[in-house]
């Protein structure tokens, strides 16, 4: 599947001019509040008609202002999970879930049936309840299921976790991961949370003041996001758990990482997000140091930050990218320069479970 978006839309005095293509998997639209993310997904979903532009899914044109094509939202087969779940208050959870299926019978495609979606989202015990009586997290899971059961060719998710507290978010994130990996439905996911994007995204589209400023794989793009904190994403697998010290050992291209005990089983793929300010650099392998993680690498580039007091040092650790934020003084004191071998030091306690 491919999604091609190229639109130009004026809303009041705010102009959105965005062009990007999304690959399979989960594409995160990432940017600050007010950068035009929601308007952009509303345009893809057919809820907003842009001044000019073109939207196509798998070559099927849904919108082309030049040719006067506008497919209304009910014929786009694009599922939409809203920030406020928007469940129908007069219908039970079961009938909410089956609502879209009824209208999409003719398509004949069954990307999902009730039993498997209910199982995927863990909402079997809620079927006969009414939406009012559900918690925020349960509502969002039902909303995701409802969108899936309409057999969408693309799923839009507009900050589905924004209205939830930390515990509810942690409850839903694994379901979205399963959604991405198991259903094969491509997802366009709006978020302003670095942690969410780092954990979920395959591809990242960065939106700044209505303009697309960067597009690419999450590990390459996220460190560049000025709305983020310059952190890096490392793909890893759980190698073993150290029960005595409540730690988990991860293996990644960059080397072994010891992090606080994860619930994920041994062998499970995980993503580590490492904030640039949590990374320390040393010219020699550090000895007798409390930090448990030392990754060997080579400096790829040094980018002075705004004001010149700090610099982002980009490292290449055996092919994996890692960014360290240092003071300009440290850069000078250690005579850091591209090509120089260094050791990145990361405290295990600086990792948080998301």
């Amino acid at each position, binding site marked *: 599947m491919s999604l091609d978006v190229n639109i130009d839309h004026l809303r009041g005095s705010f102009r959105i001019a965005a062009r990007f293509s999304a690959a399979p998997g989960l594409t995160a639209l990432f940017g600050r509040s007010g950068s035009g993310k929601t308007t952009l997904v509303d345009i893809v*979903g*057919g*809820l907003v008609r842009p001044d000019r532009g073109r939207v196509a899914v798998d070559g099927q044109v849904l919108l082309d202002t030049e040719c006067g094509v506008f497919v*209304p*939202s*009910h*014929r*786009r*087969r*694009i*599922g*939409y999970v*809203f920030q*406020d779940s*928007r469940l*129908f*208050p*007069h*219908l*039970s959870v079961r*009938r909410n879930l089956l*609502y*879209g299926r009824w*209208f*999409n019978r003719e398509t004949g495609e069954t990307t999902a049936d009730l039993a498997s979606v209910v199982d995927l989202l863990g909402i079997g015990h809620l079927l006969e309840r*009414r939406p009012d009586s559900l918690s925020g997290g349960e509502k969002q899971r039902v909303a995701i299921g*409802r*969108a899936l059961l*309409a057999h969408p060719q693309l799923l839009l998710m507009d900050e589905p976790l924004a209205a939830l507290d930390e515990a509810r978010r942690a409850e839903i994130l694994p379901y979205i991961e399963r959604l991405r990996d198991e259903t094969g439905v491509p997802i366009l996911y709006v978020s302003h949370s670095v942690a969410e994007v780092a954990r979920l995204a395959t591809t990242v589209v960065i939106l700044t003041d209505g303009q697309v400023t960067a597009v690419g794989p999450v590990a390459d793009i996220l460190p560049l996001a000025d709305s983020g904190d310059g952190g890096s994403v490392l793909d890893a697998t759980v190698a073993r758990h150290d029960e005595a010290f409540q730690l988990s050992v991860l293996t990644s291209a960059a080397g072994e990482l010891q992090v606080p005990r994860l619930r994920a089983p041994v062998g499970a793929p995980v993503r580590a997000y490492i904030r640039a300010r949590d990374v320390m650099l040393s010219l020699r392998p550090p000895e007798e140091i409390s930090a448990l993680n030392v990754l060997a690498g080579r400096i790829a580039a040094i980018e002075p930050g705004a004001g010149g007091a700090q610099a982002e040092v980009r490292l290449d650790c055996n092919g994996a990218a890692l960014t360290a934020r240092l003071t300009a003084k440290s850069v000078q004191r250690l005579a850091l320069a591209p090509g120089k071998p260094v050791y990145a030091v990361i405290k295990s306690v600086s990792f948080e479970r998301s």
Partner: protein
Amino acid sequence: MTPEEWTAVRLSLLVATTATLASLPFGIAIAWLLARRQFWGKSLLDTLVHLPLILPPVVTGYLLLISFGKRGPIGAFLDQAFGIVFSFRWTGAALACAVMGFPLLVRAIRLSIEAVDVRLESAAGTLGANPFWVFATVTLPLCLPGVIAGAILCFAKSMGEFGATITFVSNIPGETQTLPSLIYTLTQVPGGDAGAMRLTLVSIAISMLALLGSELLARRIGAHRLVA
């Protein structure tokens, strides 16, 4: 009660029920247009719908008479084309009641449609429902209490309608003599006081039953939602 009084009560119930049921689809459609669509002439339509509320009922009745009467342009056309006659028939009384009750019907339904969250409607759209199904499966069920309230108001107005009815279709016993018309007639003849009082009590009873019925219905819809 005398047979004449029974006839008037039965006729009034028939006229009010017909007026309410016949105007309901139009009322819902116009309420939806006014609540959800922007179009040229919207305020004109709004004014037109509300006109019977502010015009003297006799004026409305007279306007009906000259347009829907046998020699009126609409009346003559309906008679020749479909054989439908309103003037001096109970159907004419129902038409007069429907016109008089229409503003109340539309107003109640419009307010309840406006209270339905449009975001739920757009969510239904993304799930594949076209505008008609969005209305039938989301908007209508959610504004049903307002539809019932509007229908009850229209029914109650029809039970009490007098001025427009008597002007348009006169006061013919057994055909157009509704409950209010008979009460009026009885107050004009000597010894009619007892009959007028009986009909007044019947009138009060019917109004209260209608109100009670709507209350029960609204509660049942609420309960239905709980288990649906």
